């Protein structure tokens, strides 16, 4: 079934509240609580809103509740995947369907206090002393989950901050508030949903972090899952590479390759000197092997960089690593009014 992109038309609401319900966990009771609380807050602030309930492989009873909500609550729609596609796809789909100018995502339970809604709405609409904001990330305070969960989450965030240079402390929180256009252009899939603020920041959107009260944590949490740690590590590594070098792969591969090549060349030259000038035997010199391998590796890595450059040269025109903020033409300003 084709879902039209709402971006093709003007926004109908100030905010779209997206409720993400994944896996076997979601319960109607908690979900109803978060929908009622957050929409009440939006009403109290005085902004218009719609609700989008995303059933990403939740139990059958949950979709029955989604149907019920769409009949009782105003401006409420539901969407259901045939199987669980994960948070990235759920967010991408919701953003595609949303008719609000801004979007708030939340899990199916109240992960953070309702104050997060108030702060986020205010920052997106009016900004603060430091200007307007395009993306509001939350940092859960006084966390209610267990200390091993916090420890691994802390390590993940610290590592990501260090490598990407984007100062977000809580990438795992599901509460996010952002202007629609921040995510509309991103291609997110797999585990990339965690890094939306990093992508946004790289595209030049202004990302702001707020501290909020952590209320509740549901769903399975895994500890000491070595495979998971490896995958997360690799995700961050790829992210680092893609953020810095997508458009200039040869700089990265060329640099690394030439380091290998120079070291390998140096060792090989030394060994040659030993053999020819000093007439020493090389059969007991392990360094010879290292030198030769590094020489070859250097050439291979630089060649990989060349392949990368060719790919970018031929295909890179599809990549858009900018986002136009404002177009000024004589006489008028074309930036959409912010609510």
């Amino acid at each position, binding site marked *: 079934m084709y879902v039209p992109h709402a971006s093709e038309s003007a926004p109908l609401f100030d905010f779209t509240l997206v409720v993400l319900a994944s896996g076997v966990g979601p319960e109607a009771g908690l979900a109803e609580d978060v929908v009622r609380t957050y929409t009440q807050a939006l009403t109290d602030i005085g902004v218009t809103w719609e609700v989008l309930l995303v059933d990403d492989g939740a139990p059958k009873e949950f979709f029955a509740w989604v149907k019920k909500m769409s009949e009782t609550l105003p401006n409420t729609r539901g969407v259901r*995947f045939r199987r669980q*596609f994960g948070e990235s796809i759920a967010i991408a789909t919701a953003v595609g369907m949303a008719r609000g100018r801004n979007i708030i995502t939340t899990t199916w339970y109240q992960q953070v206090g309702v104050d997060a809604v108030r702060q986020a709405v205010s920052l997106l609409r009016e900004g603060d002393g430091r200007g307007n904001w395009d993306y509001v990330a939350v940092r859960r305070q006084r966390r209610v989950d267990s200390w091993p969960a916090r420890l691994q989450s802390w390590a993940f965030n610290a590592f990501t901050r260090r490598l990407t240079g984007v100062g977000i402390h809580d990438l795992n929180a599901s509460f996010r508030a952002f202007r629609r256009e921040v995510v509309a252009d991103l291609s997110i899939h797999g585990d990339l949903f965690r890094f939306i603020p990093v992508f946004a920041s790289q595209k030049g959107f202004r990302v702001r972090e707020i501290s909020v009260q952590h209320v509740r944590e549901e769903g399975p949490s895994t500890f000491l899952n070595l495979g998971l740690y490896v995958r997360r590590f690799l995700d961050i590594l*790829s992210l680092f590479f893609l953020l810095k070098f997508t458009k200039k792969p040869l700089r990265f591969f060329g640099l690394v390759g030439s380091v290998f090549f120079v070291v390998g060349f140096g060792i090989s030259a030394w060994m040659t000197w030993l053999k020819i000038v000093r007439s020493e035997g090389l059969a007991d010199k392990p360094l010879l092997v290292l030198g030769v391998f590094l020489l070859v590796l250097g050439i291979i890595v630089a060649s990989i960089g060349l392949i990368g450059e060719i790919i970018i040269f031929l295909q890179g025109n599809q990549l858009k690593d900018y986002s136009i903020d404002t177009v000024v033409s004589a006489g008028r300003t074309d930036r959409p009014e912010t609510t």
Partner: protein
Amino acid sequence: MPTDVSIIIPLYNEVECAPHLIEELRGFVASFDRTTEIILVDDGSDDGTFDVVRSEIRGDARAADGTPKPPLPGARLAKLRGNAGQTAAMAAGLSLAQGDVIVFMDGDLQNDPRDIPKLLEKIDEGYHLVSGWRRDRKDRALTRKFPSWAANLLIGVFTGVRVRDADGRPTGWLHDFGCTLKAYRASELRALNLYSDMHRFLPALTHRAGAKIAEVVVNHRSREFGRSKYGLSRVLKVAADLVVLRLITEFAGRPMHYFGPLALTFVLFAGFTAAVWGWNLATRTGDGTIIFPAVITLFFVSSLYFLFLGLLAELIQRVGKYDPSDQARATLETI
């Protein structure tokens, strides 16, 4: 209102079968109560299939006794510039099709168009894909039946495709991946990329997208004209394609999750070898050889090699148009 059905038939060097096929289709269309289009795709035949089919569907052909044959209503004939293969011919047909339901069929008379209503009934019941099952195959056992049985078993076990009942509960394996006669909802197919020999894996790909699959026993007739384009070598090709399918569906969106663990494994090998070497040196049982450092270096360099290949793959992934949400979008139910 009846569903629009597109019947797509790839033809490759079927000059003898074609008149009989069109004759069968005339009979079928006359008795069929839905709006139907028939898309015949001539896959670069060099035996004159195109001319024969063209005159048949236009009503220019004459029977043996000289009476003119009627045209085939709703038929279109596409000619590909070269022989592109069955999957590509099917994709070409799909690009022309306008129906809500797509039915693929062989052009060699082994499939019977009279089975099509049975498939469509199942589609109406809510299935996304209905597969024909040639339970009583009229083929030679050793060269056709056995490879087919082996290929089906292999695909079934490897991809986990199950036939489901109306409530979505699995009831058994899918028996006949290779049978061309299958009906699909068009939206399922349009979310997929059809290339290489992927037509055999369409059930697996739609299954991955969460589709509900049913199976219907269909009539199978032995080949009377022409000759088969398949042989025993098929099982090996299927096995290779299966590995590709698994890797592609699993890692196309996240290649680093494939290359990264490989790199890590080789680092561990290097570390292990280094430990053994160190222990050897410490106990003075086997030093003086450059075997250990050579092996350590080999492992280490391989590890870096995989790591950089992974980064290159990530780059390609980023540049490409791959968007898994297309697939998800095809499966949405909105209220």
